[in-house]
């Protein structure tokens, strides 16, 4: 793996902002000559969050892991149906970035959306109930796994056509510009979406109009079964290409929750200050298949999966917390127990809460 070469680290991005000149940070060699790749260890933000917040990052990541594993079990038992796309392995990207958002900010994401929903603080019971298709689900059981919405949390979906959510997010950002709010819209998409027209069209539109939007690419290196290099002429790195849209871009280690958080904080500050879009590419990896129907090992060498698993944020991050004296092992095992109880309760809730009444079929079609 050649992670960490030829792009700027999050801390440099932050430095760049402090000096308040705005070079194209996307991958030009002069900018990245002394970039320190964060392939090992975890970066610590200069604006170090409080220990409580640092432990909560772990709680949030572990909650997602446990939730997703549990969904897998209940998919196998056919309580959860349809398509199930698990976020296992990618927790640090969603948690790191969403933890940097303010309440006023909007989140728009793709169909691998449970992780983002939980990271945004949407009630675990209601997300689980949606998985089970229940009336108490966040989308009343009408959306399912791929269509999680919670308008109160400014969580604007869960969108299941690859790349289709990107223009929607630009529109939400346009409205913020129009209404002169200070809110930023963050839109998540994977490497697969980058070959859709909506991706390129929206980058141009957002740049031309100077929209307050953060394009957050979760590059897990495979669009379903297609390695990026097989389907994209420029290969695995995306930041260089952003120069074509005059959008500043940085790449960040998506397995490092603190690096992701710091990069996102810097980006948000900059977007709020300048009102123009930014692009973050987080290299990450799903440890499981594309969906539950895919074992994920036909098109990816086992060795690659094993290499990435060594960097599992659910393993590395708590070690870092203990090693740097932020949390004790006992504190972290308490977190695990609490979250396990929370997920168990969510399943219990989802099992017991009723399906929608059949009259719901005809509701919510029109406002």
């Amino acid at each position: 793996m050649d992670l960490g070469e030829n792009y700027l680290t999050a801390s440099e991005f932050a430095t760049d902002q402090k000096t308040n000149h705005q070079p194209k940070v996307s991958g030009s060699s002069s900018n990245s000559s002394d970039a320190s790749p964060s392939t090992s260890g975890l970066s610590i933000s200069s604006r170090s969050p409080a220990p409580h917040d640092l432990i909560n990052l772990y709680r949030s990541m572990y909650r997602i892991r446990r939730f997703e594993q549990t969904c897998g079990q209940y998919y196998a038992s056919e309580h959860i149906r349809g398509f199930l796309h698990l976020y296992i392995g990618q927790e640090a990207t969603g948690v790191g970035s969403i933890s940097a958002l303010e309440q006023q900010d909007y989140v728009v994401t793709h169909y691998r959306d449970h992780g983002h929903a939980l990271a945004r603080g949407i009630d675990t019971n209601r997300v689980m109930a949606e998985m089970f298709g229940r009336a108490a689900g966040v989308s009343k059981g009408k959306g399912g796994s791929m269509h999680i919405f919670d308008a109160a949390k400014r969580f604007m979906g869960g969108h299941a056509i690859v790349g289709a959510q990107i223009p929607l997010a630009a529109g939400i950002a346009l409205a913020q510009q129009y209404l002169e709010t200070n809110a930023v819209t963050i839109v998540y998409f994977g490497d697969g979406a980058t070959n859709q027209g909506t991706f390129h069209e929206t980058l141009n539109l957002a740049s031309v109009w100077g929209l307050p939007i953060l394009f957050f690419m979760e590059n897990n290196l495979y669009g379903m079964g297609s390695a990026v290099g097989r389907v994209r002429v420029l290969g695995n790195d995306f930041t260089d290409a952003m120069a074509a849209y005059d959008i500043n871009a940085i790449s960040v280690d998506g397995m490092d929750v603190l690096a992701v958080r710091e990069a996102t904080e810097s980006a948000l500050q900059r977007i709020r200050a300048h009102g123009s879009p930014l692009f973050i590419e987080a290299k990450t990896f799903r440890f499981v298949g594309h969906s539950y129907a895919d074992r994920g090992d036909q098109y990816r060498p086992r060795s690659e999966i094993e290499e990435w698993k060594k960097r599992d944020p659910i393993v590395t991050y708590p070690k870092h917390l203990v090693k740097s004296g932020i949390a004790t092992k006992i504190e972290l095992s308490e977190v695990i127990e609490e979250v396990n109880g929370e997920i168990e309760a969510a399943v219990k809730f989802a099992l017991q809460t009723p399906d929608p009444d059949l009259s719901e079929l005809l509701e919510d079609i029109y406002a």
Partner: protein
Amino acid sequence: MIQSMSELTFREAITMGLVEAIESDERVFIMGEDIGEYGGAYSVTRGFLEKYGPKRVKDTPISEAAFIGAGVGAATVGLRPIVELMSMSFALVGFDQIVNMAANIRYMSGGQLSVPMVIRAPTGAGVQLGATHSQSFETWLAEVPGMYCVCPSNPSDALGLLRTAIKDDNPVVFAEHAHLYTSRGTVPRDYYDIPLGEASVARAGDDVTLVSYGYGVKILHEASDTLEETGVSAEVIDLRSLHPMDLDAVVASVQKTGRAVMLDTARRLGGVMAELVAETQERAMDWLDAPIIRVGAKNVPWPYNRALEQDALPSPQDVVDAVGKTIAF
């Protein structure tokens, strides 16, 4: 009476509706290709940019998917975008955003989000633009739950329906037949609006019910004039909205006349009238004295050559012939 009406073109009526909306509601903005500096491909928004500025009147890149989707996003958080497509044929480029996003998002969010957005587009064949610029995809969009679809036939309806469409909290496709922009008609000076899903009796008659919408209503009027000369009294129903469709108005007319001919200016195969014929015969079978006949455009890609294009289009004579068949049945 005369003092309370003005004569406007179809284009002027739509311009008036847009001006009203911009001036009365700060949440309304317009966006589309060349609607600002250029003034709109059909000049509907000429002078708007100078008058209302780039915030309210946004020229977009030629990126239908991006700006339709942006309209949807802006609508979900409280704005009321009016998106102009240069041609209904171009809706195909943004179809995913119209159907999967604009129409579906309310349902799949369990009613949390709504999309108060109007998508305006010139539609229809007959001006030799060839296959890619002459299609009438309002007939496809009319099927989609979660959105509405209207297609006015005259200036007064255009203004009344546009007012309603802009105030509605759902996505509305507003199909403007390109042949109609220069047509004239009287428009009430006092404020009025027209509910979506309400047909009108464009001409009263007793012997046969003729149904269409948009430019088709003009064809039906011409056919009715011809029929009148032969002593056949035709009732013309203007659907005005394709979704919701005013089945009651059509059934009521058929119950009176016992015969019906239904006209699509779009392709006959799978057209709106296929649906309407089916619904009408289910509801009014006992009143029908003859099968309902559908008239529509031929099932071909639209040709450039004028004679070929005219041959593909339905004509008033086609309607007259169809009426003859229902009477002879």
